[in-house]
């Protein structure tokens, strides 16, 4: 019952995607990573919502849009606990948990100030060498960017 009321703090959508269980402080990063600012469909979002599991959470609802797994996995770095729920006629038709991808491109800056990707116009790329502790190996300078020194574009 209370779960339902909480969901309704951000109105239900008839068709589209609900991205749930986003850490409250990551909602705007998720919006940026998924490039939702440029999206023309209706988007509803809420943050600092009560969550039984995490204490506090954010949620984003995008009308008439279904994401490909590789698109949504891009948010795994900032929202590793998020789930993606596909809605059709107000019913849940599919629910998946985001997964940290094997490769990441264009989301995180290489933390090495001496890396070419911080000096020339290069689209940076990382190999995810440790999915649990989020350690990324730069394709160019081969240095490891760890979770605590990640800066997002």
């Amino acid at each position, binding site marked *: 019952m209370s779960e339902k009321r909480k969901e309704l703090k951000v109105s239900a959508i008839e068709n589209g995607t609900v991205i749930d269980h986003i850490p409250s402080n990551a909602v705007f990063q998720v919006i940026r990573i998924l490039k939702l600012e440029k999206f023309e469909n209706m988007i509803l979002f809420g943050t600092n919502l009560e969550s039984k599991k995490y204490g506090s959470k954010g949620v984003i609802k995008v009308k008439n849009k279904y994401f490909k797994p590789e698109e949504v996995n891009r948010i795994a770095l900032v929202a590793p606990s998020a789930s993606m729920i596909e809605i059709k006629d107000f019913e849940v038709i599919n629910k998946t948990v985001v997964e940290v991808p094997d490769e990441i491109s264009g989301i995180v800056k290489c933390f090495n100030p001496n890396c*070419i*990707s911080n000096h020339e116009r290069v689209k940076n790329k990382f190999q995810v060498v440790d999915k649990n502790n989020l350690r990324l190996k730069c394709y160019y300078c081969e240095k490891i960017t760890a979770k605590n020194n990640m800066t997002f574009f």
Partner: protein
Amino acid sequence: MKNKSLISINDYSKEEQLEVLKVAEEFEKNPVQNILSNNVIASLFFEPSTRTRLSFESAISRLGGKIVGFSEASNTSVKKGESLRDSILTVANYSDLIVMRNPLEGSARFASEISPVPVINAGDGSNQHPTQTLLDLYSIKKTQNKLDNLNVAFVGDLKYGRTVHSLVIALCNYNTTFHLVSPVELKLPSSVKMNIKEKNLKYYQYTELDDNVIPNVDVLYMTRIQKERFSDPLEYERIKNYYILKNDMLENSKENLRIMHPLPRVNEIDINVDKSPKAYYFQQALNGVYVRQALLSLILGLK
């Protein structure tokens, strides 16, 4: 290997690395061959170098090739603000292969992505120096008659020393036992150590260079504490005299021990050691010519 850039030692499989060493052996027997007479090689050194640049240029000259390039960036368009992208795209028009050293890490990988001609990384910042690695492997094989199951000690700056990083990674293919001797501040980075751990190889870390290490190893790979990698000059002064290898320290060493050093040396090997039959660093530098001859001819498809 034809047209295949060499950026990181792992770009070449173990078999390909061994192929380079085999061809290098042929060049050692017969170093003057006119097989590059129709080729122009660009030698772009954005950062100072003696051995790497001169041994490349010597290798090219002994094979009859022509060289275009520069040995410092200050008299090129880089000074006018030209990007590396534009420099590479321009120079690729003038040459069949680019040899590049650049202080930015990852610059060689980037160059190889945009260049229509193959690129050989002659050092990118503190990252990789694969041709040094191949000449080190060649030197180890030549002096130990094998590459497998050796005990190799690395001494000095293991944090910033790119020759160390590349050689450690390469030796992981040969069941090496690693002895890592460095001040705490200059320990081998975890990204490199990861390679040792992945292969479940043995490694030991030390802060002192003494009889706990020297009698147990087949190769003692000394390195310079690199002044240019320190932002704090006091820190450099404190660390620079940490390890100095002297003749008396070799008393209990194995007969087959060879001392290697990528050079330049500052003071970390006493010059009296040079006379020891175990000192190998100058021959090691000479081997660089044969290995680079092998690489150039394999990448250009001439061998």
